[in-house]
Protein backbone atom coordinates (compact mmCIF):
# COMPACT_ATOMS: atom_id res chain seq x y z
CA UNK A 1 0.00 0.00 0.00
CA UNK A 2 2.77 2.39 1.04
CA UNK A 3 4.69 1.59 -2.12
CA UNK A 4 1.73 2.44 -4.36
CA UNK A 5 1.20 5.74 -2.52
CA UNK A 6 4.89 6.57 -3.10
CA UNK A 7 4.50 5.64 -6.76
CA UNK A 8 1.48 7.94 -7.16
CA UNK A 9 3.31 10.77 -5.38
CA UNK A 10 6.38 10.27 -7.60
CA UNK A 11 4.16 10.32 -10.69
CA UNK A 12 2.45 13.54 -9.58
CA UNK A 13 5.83 15.14 -8.82
CA UNK A 14 7.27 14.10 -12.19
CA UNK A 15 4.26 15.38 -14.13
CA UNK A 16 4.26 18.68 -12.24
CA UNK A 17 7.92 19.07 -13.23
CA UNK A 18 6.93 18.53 -16.87
CA UNK A 19 4.40 21.33 -16.52
CA UNK A 20 7.08 23.68 -15.22
CA UNK A 21 9.40 23.15 -18.20
CA UNK A 22 10.06 26.33 -20.14
CA UNK A 23 9.92 24.65 -23.53
CA UNK A 24 8.57 25.79 -26.91
CA UNK A 25 5.00 24.89 -25.87
CA UNK A 26 5.30 27.13 -22.79
CA UNK A 27 6.69 29.96 -24.94
CA UNK A 28 3.78 29.56 -27.39
CA UNK A 29 1.32 29.66 -24.49
CA UNK A 30 2.85 32.86 -23.14
CA UNK A 31 2.73 34.39 -26.63
CA UNK A 32 -0.89 33.34 -27.16
CA UNK A 33 -1.97 35.16 -24.00
CA UNK A 34 -0.07 38.30 -25.07
CA UNK A 35 -1.67 38.11 -28.50
CA UNK A 36 -5.11 37.74 -26.99
CA UNK A 37 -4.55 40.92 -25.01
CA UNK A 38 -3.26 42.67 -28.13
CA UNK A 39 -6.26 41.36 -30.07
CA UNK A 40 -8.59 43.43 -27.90
CA UNK A 41 -6.68 46.60 -28.86
CA UNK A 42 -6.48 45.61 -32.54
CA UNK A 43 -10.24 45.02 -32.79
CA UNK A 44 -11.22 48.19 -30.99
CA UNK A 45 -8.29 50.63 -31.05
CA UNK A 46 -10.28 53.81 -30.49
CA UNK A 47 -11.78 52.57 -27.25
CA UNK A 48 -8.43 51.43 -25.86
CA UNK A 49 -6.77 53.73 -23.33
CA UNK A 50 -3.11 54.63 -23.98
CA UNK A 51 -2.07 52.93 -20.73
CA UNK A 52 -3.39 49.61 -22.03
CA UNK A 53 -1.38 50.02 -25.23
CA UNK A 54 1.75 50.72 -23.19
CA UNK A 55 1.15 47.64 -21.05
CA UNK A 56 0.73 45.43 -24.14
CA UNK A 57 3.84 46.91 -25.77
CA UNK A 58 5.87 46.43 -22.58
CA UNK A 59 4.75 42.82 -22.34
CA UNK A 60 5.75 42.13 -25.93
CA UNK A 61 9.10 43.85 -25.31
CA UNK A 62 9.68 41.66 -22.26
CA UNK A 63 8.80 38.61 -24.34
CA UNK A 64 11.34 39.61 -27.03
CA UNK A 65 14.03 40.10 -24.39
CA UNK A 66 13.17 36.82 -22.69
CA UNK A 67 13.20 34.70 -25.87
CA UNK A 68 15.41 36.58 -28.35
CA UNK A 69 16.19 33.46 -30.42
CA UNK A 70 12.60 32.23 -30.67
CA UNK A 71 10.76 32.71 -33.97
CA UNK A 72 7.85 34.18 -32.03
CA UNK A 73 10.08 37.05 -30.89
CA UNK A 74 9.96 38.42 -34.47
CA UNK A 75 6.17 38.09 -34.46
CA UNK A 76 6.09 39.94 -31.13
CA UNK A 77 8.14 42.78 -32.62
CA UNK A 78 5.72 43.01 -35.55
CA UNK A 79 2.78 42.99 -33.15
CA UNK A 80 4.18 46.02 -31.34
CA UNK A 81 4.40 47.87 -34.66
CA UNK A 82 0.85 46.80 -35.57
CA UNK A 83 -0.44 48.05 -32.21
CA UNK A 84 1.13 51.46 -32.80
CA UNK A 85 -0.31 51.48 -36.32
CA UNK A 86 -3.89 50.86 -35.23
CA UNK A 87 -3.52 53.47 -32.52
CA UNK A 88 -2.31 55.86 -35.25
CA UNK A 89 1.05 56.40 -33.57
CA UNK A 90 2.76 56.23 -36.94
CA UNK A 91 6.21 57.53 -36.08
CA UNK A 92 6.49 55.05 -33.18
CA UNK A 93 5.39 52.27 -35.53
CA UNK A 94 7.96 53.27 -38.17
CA UNK A 95 10.73 53.44 -35.53
CA UNK A 96 9.88 49.91 -34.46
CA UNK A 97 9.78 48.69 -38.06
CA UNK A 98 13.12 50.23 -38.95
CA UNK A 99 14.55 48.62 -35.80
CA UNK A 100 13.24 45.26 -37.07
CA UNK A 101 14.92 45.82 -40.46
CA UNK A 102 18.23 46.67 -38.75
CA UNK A 103 18.01 43.68 -36.44
CA UNK A 104 17.03 41.13 -39.10
CA UNK A 105 18.90 42.62 -42.05
CA UNK A 106 19.88 39.14 -43.30
CA UNK A 107 16.28 37.90 -43.56
CA UNK A 108 14.71 39.29 -46.73
CA UNK A 109 11.26 37.96 -45.77
CA UNK A 110 11.26 39.74 -42.40
CA UNK A 111 12.65 42.96 -43.92
CA UNK A 112 10.07 42.92 -46.72
CA UNK A 113 7.24 42.55 -44.20
CA UNK A 114 8.63 45.43 -42.14
CA UNK A 115 8.95 47.58 -45.25
CA UNK A 116 5.38 46.72 -46.26
CA UNK A 117 4.04 47.72 -42.84
CA UNK A 118 6.02 50.98 -43.11
CA UNK A 119 4.23 51.60 -46.41
CA UNK A 120 0.94 50.77 -44.68
CA UNK A 121 1.72 53.40 -42.04
CA UNK A 122 1.93 56.09 -44.76
CA UNK A 123 -1.29 54.80 -46.30
CA UNK A 124 -3.06 55.00 -42.95
CA UNK A 125 -1.72 58.54 -42.56
CA UNK A 126 -3.34 59.37 -45.94
CA UNK A 127 0.02 59.89 -47.60
CA UNK A 128 -0.28 57.69 -50.68
CA UNK A 129 2.73 59.20 -52.45
CA UNK A 130 5.10 58.25 -49.66
CA UNK A 131 3.42 54.85 -49.35
CA UNK A 132 3.85 54.24 -53.09
CA UNK A 133 7.48 55.32 -52.88
CA UNK A 134 8.00 52.84 -50.05
CA UNK A 135 6.22 50.04 -51.94
CA UNK A 136 8.23 50.65 -55.12
CA UNK A 137 11.45 50.52 -53.12
CA UNK A 138 10.26 47.26 -51.58
CA UNK A 139 9.55 45.81 -55.03
CA UNK A 140 13.09 46.69 -56.11
CA UNK A 141 14.88 45.56 -52.93
CA UNK A 142 12.90 42.42 -52.07
CA UNK A 143 11.48 41.36 -55.43
CA UNK A 144 11.70 37.62 -54.85
CA UNK A 145 10.06 37.55 -51.41
CA UNK A 146 6.35 36.60 -51.22
CA UNK A 147 5.50 40.17 -50.24
CA UNK A 148 7.65 41.63 -53.02
CA UNK A 149 5.98 39.36 -55.53
CA UNK A 150 2.43 40.25 -54.53
CA UNK A 151 2.99 43.97 -54.06
CA UNK A 152 2.60 45.16 -57.71
CA UNK A 153 -0.89 43.64 -57.75
CA UNK A 154 -1.59 45.15 -54.31
CA UNK A 155 -0.78 48.63 -55.67
CA UNK A 156 -3.16 48.12 -58.60
CA UNK A 157 -5.87 46.88 -56.23
CA UNK A 158 -5.47 50.01 -54.13
CA UNK A 159 -6.25 52.13 -57.22
CA UNK A 160 -9.21 49.87 -57.94
CA UNK A 161 -10.66 50.46 -54.47
CA UNK A 162 -10.10 54.19 -54.90
CA UNK A 163 -12.03 54.14 -58.22
CA UNK A 164 -9.05 55.31 -60.30
CA UNK A 165 -9.33 53.05 -63.39
CA UNK A 166 -6.60 54.76 -65.43
CA UNK A 167 -4.07 54.43 -62.65
CA UNK A 168 -5.25 50.88 -62.00
CA UNK A 169 -4.64 49.89 -65.65
CA UNK A 170 -1.27 51.59 -65.57
CA UNK A 171 -0.37 49.74 -62.35
CA UNK A 172 -1.38 46.40 -63.85
CA UNK A 173 0.73 47.12 -66.96
CA UNK A 174 3.66 47.95 -64.70
CA UNK A 175 3.05 44.72 -62.76
CA UNK A 176 3.05 42.71 -66.02
CA UNK A 177 6.34 44.28 -67.10
CA UNK A 178 7.82 43.63 -63.66
CA UNK A 179 6.77 39.97 -63.59
CA UNK A 180 8.09 39.45 -67.15
CA UNK A 181 11.45 40.93 -66.11
CA UNK A 182 11.54 38.68 -63.07
CA UNK A 183 10.81 35.60 -65.19
CA UNK A 184 13.68 36.57 -67.48
CA UNK A 185 16.01 37.25 -64.57
CA UNK A 186 15.35 33.91 -62.85
CA UNK A 187 14.61 31.50 -65.72
CA UNK A 188 13.75 27.84 -65.00
CA UNK A 189 12.97 28.57 -61.35
CA UNK A 190 9.73 28.19 -59.41
CA UNK A 191 9.74 31.97 -59.14
CA UNK A 192 9.65 32.29 -62.95
CA UNK A 193 6.64 29.94 -63.07
CA UNK A 194 4.86 32.06 -60.46
CA UNK A 195 5.76 35.24 -62.33
CA UNK A 196 4.31 33.86 -65.59
CA UNK A 197 1.12 32.89 -63.79
CA UNK A 198 0.87 36.36 -62.23
CA UNK A 199 1.20 37.91 -65.71
CA UNK A 200 -1.82 35.88 -66.84
CA UNK A 201 -3.67 36.82 -63.66
CA UNK A 202 -3.05 40.53 -64.33
CA UNK A 203 -4.41 40.19 -67.88
CA UNK A 204 -7.48 38.42 -66.48
CA UNK A 205 -8.14 41.24 -63.99
CA UNK A 206 -7.96 43.90 -66.72
CA UNK A 207 -10.13 41.62 -68.90
CA UNK A 208 -7.55 41.36 -71.68
CA UNK A 209 -8.67 37.77 -72.32
CA UNK A 210 -6.67 37.11 -75.49
CA UNK A 211 -3.39 38.12 -73.86
CA UNK A 212 -4.34 36.09 -70.76
CA UNK A 213 -4.84 32.98 -72.91
CA UNK A 214 -1.60 33.67 -74.82
CA UNK A 215 0.33 33.93 -71.53
CA UNK A 216 -1.20 30.70 -70.24
CA UNK A 217 -0.48 28.91 -73.53
CA UNK A 218 3.13 30.15 -73.40
CA UNK A 219 3.35 28.61 -69.90
CA UNK A 220 2.17 25.26 -71.22
CA UNK A 221 4.79 25.29 -73.95
CA UNK A 222 7.53 26.29 -71.54
CA UNK A 223 6.70 24.05 -68.58
CA UNK A 224 5.08 20.95 -70.13
CA UNK A 225 6.39 17.83 -68.44
CA UNK A 226 8.13 19.84 -65.73
CA UNK A 227 5.25 21.14 -63.59
CA UNK A 228 1.58 20.18 -63.12
CA UNK A 229 -0.35 22.47 -65.45
CA UNK A 230 -3.90 21.36 -64.67
CA UNK A 231 -4.78 24.72 -63.15
CA UNK A 232 -3.41 26.55 -66.21
CA UNK A 233 -5.51 24.37 -68.52
CA UNK A 234 -8.61 24.95 -66.42
CA UNK A 235 -8.05 28.72 -66.59
CA UNK A 236 -7.70 28.54 -70.38
CA UNK A 237 -10.90 26.47 -70.63
CA UNK A 238 -12.88 28.86 -68.44
CA UNK A 239 -11.69 31.92 -70.39
CA UNK A 240 -12.57 30.31 -73.75
CA UNK A 241 -15.91 29.09 -72.44
CA UNK A 242 -17.18 32.14 -70.61
CA UNK A 243 -15.29 35.15 -72.03
CA UNK A 244 -14.21 34.37 -75.61
CA UNK A 245 -17.22 32.13 -76.28
CA UNK A 246 -15.06 29.59 -78.11
CA UNK A 247 -16.60 26.28 -76.99
CA UNK A 248 -14.36 24.15 -79.21
CA UNK A 249 -11.13 25.47 -77.73
CA UNK A 250 -12.59 25.27 -74.23
CA UNK A 251 -13.43 21.61 -74.82
CA UNK A 252 -9.93 20.96 -76.19
CA UNK A 253 -8.36 22.40 -73.03
CA UNK A 254 -10.69 20.40 -70.74
CA UNK A 255 -10.03 17.16 -72.62
CA UNK A 256 -6.31 17.80 -72.47
CA UNK A 257 -6.63 18.37 -68.71
CA UNK A 258 -8.47 15.05 -68.26
CA UNK A 259 -5.97 13.21 -70.49
CA UNK A 260 -2.74 14.66 -69.06
CA UNK A 261 -3.78 14.88 -65.39
CA UNK A 262 -6.32 12.13 -64.71
CA UNK A 263 -5.64 12.27 -60.95
CA UNK A 264 -6.01 16.04 -60.66
CA UNK A 265 -8.58 17.47 -58.23
CA UNK A 266 -9.84 19.56 -61.17
CA UNK A 267 -10.93 16.51 -63.21
CA UNK A 268 -14.38 16.52 -61.58
CA UNK A 269 -14.91 20.18 -62.45
CA UNK A 270 -13.61 19.56 -65.99
CA UNK A 271 -16.07 16.67 -66.43
CA UNK A 272 -18.91 18.86 -65.18
CA UNK A 273 -17.96 21.64 -67.63
CA UNK A 274 -17.78 19.16 -70.51
CA UNK A 275 -21.18 17.81 -69.49
CA UNK A 276 -22.56 21.35 -69.64
CA UNK A 277 -21.28 21.54 -73.20
CA UNK A 278 -23.12 18.33 -74.03
CA UNK A 279 -20.02 16.09 -74.17
CA UNK A 280 -20.19 12.77 -72.26
Amino acid at each position, binding site marked *: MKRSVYCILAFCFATSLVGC*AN*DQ*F*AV*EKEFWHLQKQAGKILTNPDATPTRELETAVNKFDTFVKKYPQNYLAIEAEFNIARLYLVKKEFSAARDRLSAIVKKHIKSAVVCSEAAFLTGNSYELANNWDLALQQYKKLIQDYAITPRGLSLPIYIAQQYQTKYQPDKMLEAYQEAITHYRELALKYPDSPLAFNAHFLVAKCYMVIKDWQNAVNSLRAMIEKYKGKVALDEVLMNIAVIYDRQLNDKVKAREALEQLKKDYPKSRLVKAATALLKNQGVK
Partner: protein
Amino acid sequence: MIPQKSSIALIKKSYKITLDSIKHRPIVYVPFLIFAILETFSLIVLNFAPRQPLVVVFGPPIKTFLGERFLHYPAYFLLLPKLSALSRMVLSVIFGSFLTGAAINIIFDLYQKGQVKLGNSLQSALKKYAAFFLIYLLVTVLFYYSMKICASALLKYFMAGHTKLLFLSAKLWLGPLLICVNFVIAAFIQSLFIYALPILIIDKERLLGSIWKSMAMFKKLFVPTIILVAFPMLIYLPIILLNANSGFLMSKLFPEFMLIVTFAGIVLSSLVIDPLITISTTFLYLINKES
Protein backbone atom coordinates in the same frame (compact mmCIF):
# COMPACT_ATOMS: atom_id res chain seq x y z
CA MET B 1 -40.17 -9.47 -25.74
CA ILE B 2 -41.87 -8.63 -22.46
CA PRO B 3 -44.93 -6.37 -22.09
CA GLN B 4 -44.45 -2.62 -21.63
CA LYS B 5 -45.90 -2.53 -18.09
CA SER B 6 -43.51 -5.12 -16.77
CA SER B 7 -40.65 -3.45 -18.64
CA ILE B 8 -41.24 -0.25 -16.68
CA ALA B 9 -41.48 -2.23 -13.46
CA LEU B 10 -38.22 -4.00 -14.25
CA ILE B 11 -36.45 -0.71 -14.98
CA LYS B 12 -37.76 0.81 -11.75
CA LYS B 13 -36.72 -2.21 -9.72
CA SER B 14 -33.25 -2.33 -11.31
CA TYR B 15 -32.63 1.34 -10.61
CA LYS B 16 -33.91 1.04 -7.06
CA ILE B 17 -31.56 -1.83 -6.25
CA THR B 18 -28.71 -0.08 -8.07
CA LEU B 19 -29.07 3.15 -6.12
CA ASP B 20 -29.56 1.26 -2.84
CA SER B 21 -26.45 -0.81 -3.35
CA ILE B 22 -24.35 2.25 -4.29
CA LYS B 23 -25.68 4.03 -1.21
CA HIS B 24 -25.33 1.23 1.33
CA ARG B 25 -22.50 -0.83 -0.18
CA PRO B 26 -20.13 1.67 -1.79
CA ILE B 27 -17.65 -1.16 -2.40
CA VAL B 28 -19.58 -1.74 -5.67
CA TYR B 29 -18.21 1.56 -6.76
CA VAL B 30 -14.52 0.76 -6.15
CA PRO B 31 -13.69 -0.79 -9.59
CA PHE B 32 -15.20 2.23 -11.34
CA LEU B 33 -13.24 4.57 -9.08
CA ILE B 34 -10.02 2.72 -9.95
CA PHE B 35 -10.82 3.08 -13.65
CA ALA B 36 -11.53 6.81 -13.22
CA ILE B 37 -8.14 7.23 -11.51
CA LEU B 38 -6.44 5.38 -14.38
CA GLU B 39 -8.17 7.60 -16.91
CA THR B 40 -7.22 10.73 -14.99
CA PHE B 41 -3.58 9.60 -14.98
CA SER B 42 -3.72 9.07 -18.72
CA LEU B 43 -5.25 12.54 -19.15
CA ILE B 44 -2.45 14.08 -17.09
CA VAL B 45 0.13 12.34 -19.28
CA LEU B 46 -1.71 13.38 -22.46
CA ASN B 47 -1.96 16.97 -21.23
CA PHE B 48 1.82 17.11 -21.06
CA ALA B 49 2.37 15.10 -24.27
CA PRO B 50 3.50 18.09 -26.40
CA ARG B 51 5.94 19.22 -23.73
CA GLN B 52 9.49 18.19 -22.86
CA PRO B 53 10.41 15.40 -22.19
CA LEU B 54 7.16 13.58 -23.14
CA VAL B 55 7.14 15.16 -26.61
CA VAL B 56 10.09 12.92 -27.49
CA VAL B 57 7.72 9.93 -27.24
CA PHE B 58 4.38 11.45 -28.25
CA GLY B 59 5.63 14.03 -30.78
CA PRO B 60 6.48 11.76 -33.76
CA PRO B 61 3.16 9.83 -33.86
CA ILE B 62 1.10 13.01 -33.40
CA LYS B 63 3.13 14.74 -36.13
CA THR B 64 2.81 11.79 -38.52
CA PHE B 65 -0.83 10.82 -38.06
CA LEU B 66 -2.52 14.07 -37.05
CA GLY B 67 -0.32 16.94 -38.20
CA GLU B 68 2.54 19.06 -36.90
CA ARG B 69 0.29 21.96 -35.91
CA PHE B 70 -1.28 19.87 -33.14
CA LEU B 71 2.03 19.89 -31.27
CA HIS B 72 1.70 23.63 -30.75
CA TYR B 73 -0.29 25.81 -28.39
CA PRO B 74 -3.29 26.23 -28.54
CA ALA B 75 -4.06 23.73 -31.36
CA TYR B 76 -3.07 20.79 -29.14
CA PHE B 77 -6.14 21.37 -27.00
CA LEU B 78 -8.34 20.73 -30.06
CA LEU B 79 -6.79 17.30 -30.23
CA LEU B 80 -6.87 16.49 -26.51
CA PRO B 81 -10.50 15.20 -26.38
CA LYS B 82 -9.83 12.91 -29.35
CA LEU B 83 -6.62 11.56 -27.78
CA SER B 84 -8.42 11.08 -24.49
CA ALA B 85 -11.20 9.13 -26.24
CA LEU B 86 -8.59 6.91 -27.91
CA SER B 87 -6.80 6.34 -24.61
CA ARG B 88 -10.15 5.47 -23.01
CA MET B 89 -10.69 2.81 -25.67
CA VAL B 90 -7.29 1.25 -24.94
CA LEU B 91 -7.75 1.50 -21.16
CA SER B 92 -11.25 0.01 -21.42
CA VAL B 93 -10.02 -3.04 -23.27
CA ILE B 94 -6.98 -3.61 -21.02
CA PHE B 95 -8.21 -2.54 -17.57
CA GLY B 96 -11.90 -1.71 -17.95
CA SER B 97 -12.73 -5.27 -18.96
CA PHE B 98 -11.10 -6.64 -15.82
CA LEU B 99 -12.56 -3.99 -13.49
CA THR B 100 -16.07 -4.39 -14.90
CA GLY B 101 -15.72 -8.13 -14.37
CA ALA B 102 -14.70 -7.45 -10.76
CA ALA B 103 -17.67 -5.10 -10.32
CA ILE B 104 -20.06 -7.77 -11.63
CA ASN B 105 -18.51 -10.29 -9.21
CA ILE B 106 -19.10 -7.84 -6.36
CA ILE B 107 -22.75 -7.31 -7.43
CA PHE B 108 -23.30 -11.06 -7.70
CA ASP B 109 -21.81 -11.69 -4.24
CA LEU B 110 -23.92 -8.88 -2.81
CA TYR B 111 -27.08 -10.25 -4.38
CA GLN B 112 -26.42 -13.88 -3.44
CA LYS B 113 -24.54 -13.77 -0.13
CA GLY B 114 -25.06 -10.22 1.05
CA GLN B 115 -21.33 -9.81 1.75
CA VAL B 116 -18.32 -9.03 -0.40
CA LYS B 117 -14.56 -9.48 -0.27
CA LEU B 118 -12.89 -7.18 -2.78
CA GLY B 119 -9.80 -9.41 -3.05
CA ASN B 120 -11.87 -12.47 -3.93
CA SER B 121 -13.86 -10.55 -6.54
CA LEU B 122 -10.70 -9.25 -8.17
CA GLN B 123 -9.16 -12.72 -8.11
CA SER B 124 -12.12 -14.41 -9.76
CA ALA B 125 -12.26 -11.63 -12.37
CA LEU B 126 -8.59 -12.25 -13.12
CA LYS B 127 -9.33 -15.91 -13.85
CA LYS B 128 -11.64 -14.94 -16.71
CA TYR B 129 -9.62 -11.94 -17.87
CA ALA B 130 -8.94 -13.35 -21.35
CA ALA B 131 -12.67 -13.69 -22.08
CA PHE B 132 -13.45 -10.21 -20.70
CA PHE B 133 -10.62 -8.76 -22.75
CA LEU B 134 -11.90 -10.34 -25.98
CA ILE B 135 -15.48 -9.18 -25.40
CA TYR B 136 -14.33 -5.61 -24.72
CA LEU B 137 -12.04 -5.70 -27.72
CA LEU B 138 -14.89 -6.88 -29.94
CA VAL B 139 -17.24 -4.18 -28.62
CA THR B 140 -14.60 -1.46 -29.02
CA VAL B 141 -13.66 -2.50 -32.57
CA LEU B 142 -17.32 -2.75 -33.59
CA PHE B 143 -18.11 0.61 -32.02
CA TYR B 144 -15.08 2.37 -33.54
CA TYR B 145 -15.54 1.04 -37.07
CA SER B 146 -19.31 1.50 -37.22
CA MET B 147 -18.83 5.16 -36.32
CA LYS B 148 -16.01 5.54 -38.87
CA ILE B 149 -18.04 3.85 -41.61
CA CYS B 150 -21.08 5.97 -40.84
CA ALA B 151 -19.15 9.26 -40.87
CA SER B 152 -17.19 8.43 -44.03
CA ALA B 153 -20.33 7.18 -45.83
CA LEU B 154 -22.07 10.49 -45.12
CA LEU B 155 -18.99 12.43 -46.14
CA LYS B 156 -18.66 10.50 -49.41
CA TYR B 157 -22.35 10.96 -50.14
CA PHE B 158 -22.11 14.74 -49.81
CA MET B 159 -18.70 14.96 -51.51
CA ALA B 160 -20.25 13.23 -54.53
CA GLY B 161 -22.28 16.37 -55.10
CA HIS B 162 -25.56 15.58 -53.30
CA THR B 163 -26.86 18.55 -51.39
CA LYS B 164 -29.59 16.81 -49.36
CA LEU B 165 -30.29 13.45 -47.75
CA LEU B 166 -33.88 12.78 -46.62
CA PHE B 167 -34.65 16.49 -47.13
CA LEU B 168 -31.88 17.49 -44.71
CA SER B 169 -28.72 19.42 -45.56
CA ALA B 170 -25.10 18.24 -45.26
CA LYS B 171 -24.54 20.69 -42.40
CA LEU B 172 -27.26 18.99 -40.36
CA TRP B 173 -26.20 15.47 -41.26
CA LEU B 174 -22.50 15.99 -40.55
CA GLY B 175 -23.25 18.00 -37.39
CA PRO B 176 -26.00 17.20 -34.88
CA LEU B 177 -27.48 14.25 -36.79
CA LEU B 178 -24.16 12.43 -36.94
CA ILE B 179 -23.89 12.85 -33.16
CA CYS B 180 -27.38 11.30 -32.80
CA VAL B 181 -26.56 8.45 -35.19
CA ASN B 182 -23.34 7.73 -33.27
CA PHE B 183 -25.31 7.78 -30.03
CA VAL B 184 -27.80 5.23 -31.35
CA ILE B 185 -24.99 3.01 -32.65
CA ALA B 186 -23.15 3.19 -29.30
CA ALA B 187 -26.31 2.37 -27.33
CA PHE B 188 -27.22 -0.53 -29.63
CA ILE B 189 -23.77 -2.15 -29.66
CA GLN B 190 -23.38 -1.81 -25.89
CA SER B 191 -26.86 -3.27 -25.36
CA LEU B 192 -26.05 -6.25 -27.59
CA PHE B 193 -23.07 -7.27 -25.46
CA ILE B 194 -24.14 -5.91 -22.07
CA TYR B 195 -25.11 -9.33 -20.61
CA ALA B 196 -22.03 -11.17 -21.91
CA LEU B 197 -19.95 -10.46 -18.79
CA PRO B 198 -22.72 -11.29 -16.26
CA ILE B 199 -23.40 -14.54 -18.17
CA LEU B 200 -19.68 -15.39 -18.19
CA ILE B 201 -19.38 -14.78 -14.45
CA ILE B 202 -22.74 -15.86 -13.06
CA ASP B 203 -23.67 -18.69 -15.42
CA LYS B 204 -20.04 -19.71 -15.96
CA GLU B 205 -20.75 -19.84 -19.67
CA ARG B 206 -18.04 -20.03 -22.38
CA LEU B 207 -17.01 -16.95 -24.40
CA LEU B 208 -19.04 -17.52 -27.58
CA GLY B 209 -21.97 -18.90 -25.63
CA SER B 210 -22.04 -15.82 -23.41
CA ILE B 211 -22.05 -13.49 -26.43
CA TRP B 212 -24.82 -15.47 -28.09
CA LYS B 213 -26.90 -15.60 -24.90
CA SER B 214 -26.32 -11.88 -24.33
CA MET B 215 -27.82 -11.12 -27.73
CA ALA B 216 -30.76 -13.43 -27.01
CA MET B 217 -31.25 -11.75 -23.64
CA PHE B 218 -31.15 -8.34 -25.27
CA LYS B 219 -33.85 -9.47 -27.68
CA LYS B 220 -35.95 -10.74 -24.80
CA LEU B 221 -35.45 -7.69 -22.57
CA PHE B 222 -35.20 -5.21 -25.43
CA VAL B 223 -37.03 -2.20 -23.92
CA PRO B 224 -35.61 -2.31 -20.38
CA THR B 225 -32.09 -3.03 -21.67
CA ILE B 226 -32.03 -0.22 -24.23
CA ILE B 227 -33.42 2.21 -21.65
CA LEU B 228 -30.97 1.13 -18.93
CA VAL B 229 -28.11 1.57 -21.41
CA ALA B 230 -29.20 4.64 -23.36
CA PHE B 231 -30.68 6.71 -20.55
CA PRO B 232 -27.44 7.16 -18.56
CA MET B 233 -25.58 7.76 -21.83
CA LEU B 234 -27.71 10.87 -22.38
CA ILE B 235 -25.86 12.47 -19.47
CA TYR B 236 -22.78 12.54 -21.73
CA LEU B 237 -24.49 14.63 -24.43
CA PRO B 238 -23.40 18.04 -23.00
CA ILE B 239 -19.77 16.87 -23.18
CA ILE B 240 -20.26 15.82 -26.83
CA LEU B 241 -21.78 19.20 -27.63
CA LEU B 242 -18.95 21.05 -25.89
CA ASN B 243 -16.39 18.95 -27.79
CA ALA B 244 -18.17 19.68 -31.07
CA ASN B 245 -17.73 23.41 -30.42
CA SER B 246 -14.20 23.22 -29.08
CA GLY B 247 -12.74 25.82 -31.46
CA PHE B 248 -15.34 28.42 -30.51
CA LEU B 249 -14.98 27.70 -26.77
CA MET B 250 -11.20 27.89 -26.91
CA SER B 251 -11.22 31.25 -28.63
CA LYS B 252 -13.94 32.73 -26.42
CA LEU B 253 -12.65 31.35 -23.09
CA PHE B 254 -9.17 29.80 -22.94
CA PRO B 255 -7.62 26.73 -24.63
CA GLU B 256 -7.25 24.81 -21.35
CA PHE B 257 -11.05 24.81 -21.12
CA MET B 258 -10.95 21.68 -23.28
CA LEU B 259 -8.87 19.99 -20.58
CA ILE B 260 -11.63 20.78 -18.07
CA VAL B 261 -14.28 19.47 -20.48
CA THR B 262 -12.29 16.28 -21.04
CA PHE B 263 -11.86 15.76 -17.31
CA ALA B 264 -15.59 16.35 -16.77
CA GLY B 265 -16.17 13.73 -19.46
CA ILE B 266 -14.01 11.24 -17.54
CA VAL B 267 -15.86 11.94 -14.29
CA LEU B 268 -19.26 11.57 -15.97
CA SER B 269 -18.47 8.47 -17.99
CA SER B 270 -16.40 6.56 -15.43
CA LEU B 271 -18.15 7.57 -12.22
CA VAL B 272 -21.76 8.03 -13.34
CA ILE B 273 -22.60 6.41 -16.67
CA ASP B 274 -20.50 3.22 -16.50
CA PRO B 275 -21.55 2.31 -12.91
CA LEU B 276 -25.22 3.01 -13.65
CA ILE B 277 -25.22 0.90 -16.81
CA THR B 278 -23.16 -1.99 -15.45
CA ILE B 279 -24.84 -2.27 -12.05
CA SER B 280 -28.42 -1.78 -13.28
CA THR B 281 -28.14 -4.25 -16.18
CA THR B 282 -26.45 -6.85 -13.95
CA PHE B 283 -29.29 -6.51 -11.45
CA LEU B 284 -31.79 -6.73 -14.30
CA TYR B 285 -30.09 -9.93 -15.41
CA LEU B 286 -30.22 -11.34 -11.87
CA ILE B 287 -33.88 -10.36 -11.40
CA ASN B 288 -34.79 -11.94 -14.71
CA LYS B 289 -32.81 -15.09 -13.88
CA GLU B 290 -34.57 -15.40 -10.52
CA SER B 291 -38.03 -14.94 -12.00
